[in-house]
């Protein structure tokens, strides 16, 4: 209990004094995760929408596989990307290991299946509802996917937020491919891990509180900007 109180006080102090290290770490966390989520949404929403609309042999297996990938362990993704980007690996020549780029790559790989699987479900449900009417209007192919994605935009925002939550909260992938290098690849979660390993539990907890706070702010902002409410009129 005392630790928790100390942690809250520390968290407020860090924020209000605008601690430079903290700001740097927050900035990198947001930069890496937001970029990864953006990329994951571009790839995942199109893939998911296509899977929701197209009928092809083996479709049920693809859907099961996609859903299962939502449970990809971050540390496994980190390991996989490390093996790819390591100097001893196939993409080593680019020297991307231990850079924010590597972290973005890893998190994009982690988040894309989540976005794709959830988008597939959202789009498929909508497609069921709209199928006949849109066919009657002669809408198909790319136009169909575009219409469904735009119409599902509120649900898709939630999907993107789910992806963001996953990205900003994971530590396994960014630790391995980023190396938690001070002033370069240290993000909130790896900083928390480091402070915990130094026994600085109050500081680790404080950083955790701040991270949760950031997540709240992001979700709150999206909710306000999305700004859609309204009750259906009667007769």
């Amino acid at each position, binding site marked *: 209990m005392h630790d928790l109180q100390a942690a809250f006080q520390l968290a407020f102090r860090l924020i209000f004094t605008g601690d430079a290290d903290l700001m740097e770490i927050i900035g990198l966390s947001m930069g890496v995760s937001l970029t990864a989520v953006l990329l994951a949404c571009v790839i995942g929403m199109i893939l998911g929408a296509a899977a929701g609309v197209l009928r092809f042999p083996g479709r049920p297996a693809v859907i099961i596989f996609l859903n299962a990938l939502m449970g990809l362990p971050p540390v496994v993704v980190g390991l996989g990307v490390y093996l790819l980007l390591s100097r001893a690996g196939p993409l080593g020549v680019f020297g991307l290991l231990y850079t924010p780029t590597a972290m973005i790559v890893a998190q994009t790989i982690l988040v894309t299946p989540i976005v794709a699987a959830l988008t597939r479900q959202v789009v498929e449900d909508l497609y069921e*509802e*709209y199928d*006949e*009417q*849109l*066919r*009657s*209007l*002669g*809408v198909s192919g790319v*136009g169909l996917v575009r*219409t469904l994605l735009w*119409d599902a*935009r*509120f649900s898709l925002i939630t999907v993107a937020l789910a992806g963001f939550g996953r990205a900003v909260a994971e530590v396994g992938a960014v630790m391995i491919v980023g190396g938690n290098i001070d002033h370069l690849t240290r993000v909130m979660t790896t900083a928390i891990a480091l402070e915990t390993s130094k026994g600085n539990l109050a500081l680790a907890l404080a950083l955790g509180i701040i991270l949760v706070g950031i997540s709240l702010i992001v979700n709150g902002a999206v909710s306000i900007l999305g700004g*859609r409410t*309204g*009750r*259906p*009129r*009667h*007769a």
Partner: protein
Amino acid sequence: MRDSILPLRADALRYSVDGRALIDGVSLTIEPGAFAVVLGPNGAGKSLLLRLLHGMLPPTSGKVTWANGVNGDLRRRQAMVFQRPVLLRRSVEANIAYALGALGVPRRQRADMIDLALTRAGLEDSRRVQARLLSVGEQQRLTVARALACEPDIMFLDEPTASLDPASVQRIETLLSDANARGMAVVLVTHDVGQARRLGRDIVFLHGGRLAEQSSADAFFDTPRSRVARAYLAGEIIV
């Protein structure tokens, strides 16, 4: 003006699933400006017939032909309205704009067509309202307005006013008869015999996937020829 895509001819249409014929040898003709009401007990295949005529399903055998073998862009000259209104998450006017865009109407022509459609349907005051926030009656009025916006030669409707309040039913029936008076053909599936009497000029009576009777409305309601039709009009349950 351009040529109408009607008359629409169905020749020995047959639609089977797993060997069972749900539509069995239906032939009929819809002339330009006709108002045909499709009646029949549940499971008779009315909705299925509508979809076959509209081209949404391919028949197992038989064919659907349009005027002069027109095959080209039939989409723009037909429209279909379903029992439950299907509207996109956008404003009332945007829904109409979307349909016009999907049917290939150039952007600069759309504004006038949208205005006209909204005025006819009495929805001008709601043009910027989110379509899904309208009442059910208003939503269905919107789908009819959307369908009418492109001035189709023929409109198919699948029980459009089932479960709507009487005021909405009346407004929609007015929209349809007005459009029909302007020359648009209507093929309407309904369970409401009263509605069939009010609107229909030709009756197509289906039973068990077959065309049990087809005649003018007057003839049908005065002296139905088939036993099934008589039983139906008398309010009996037909299996």
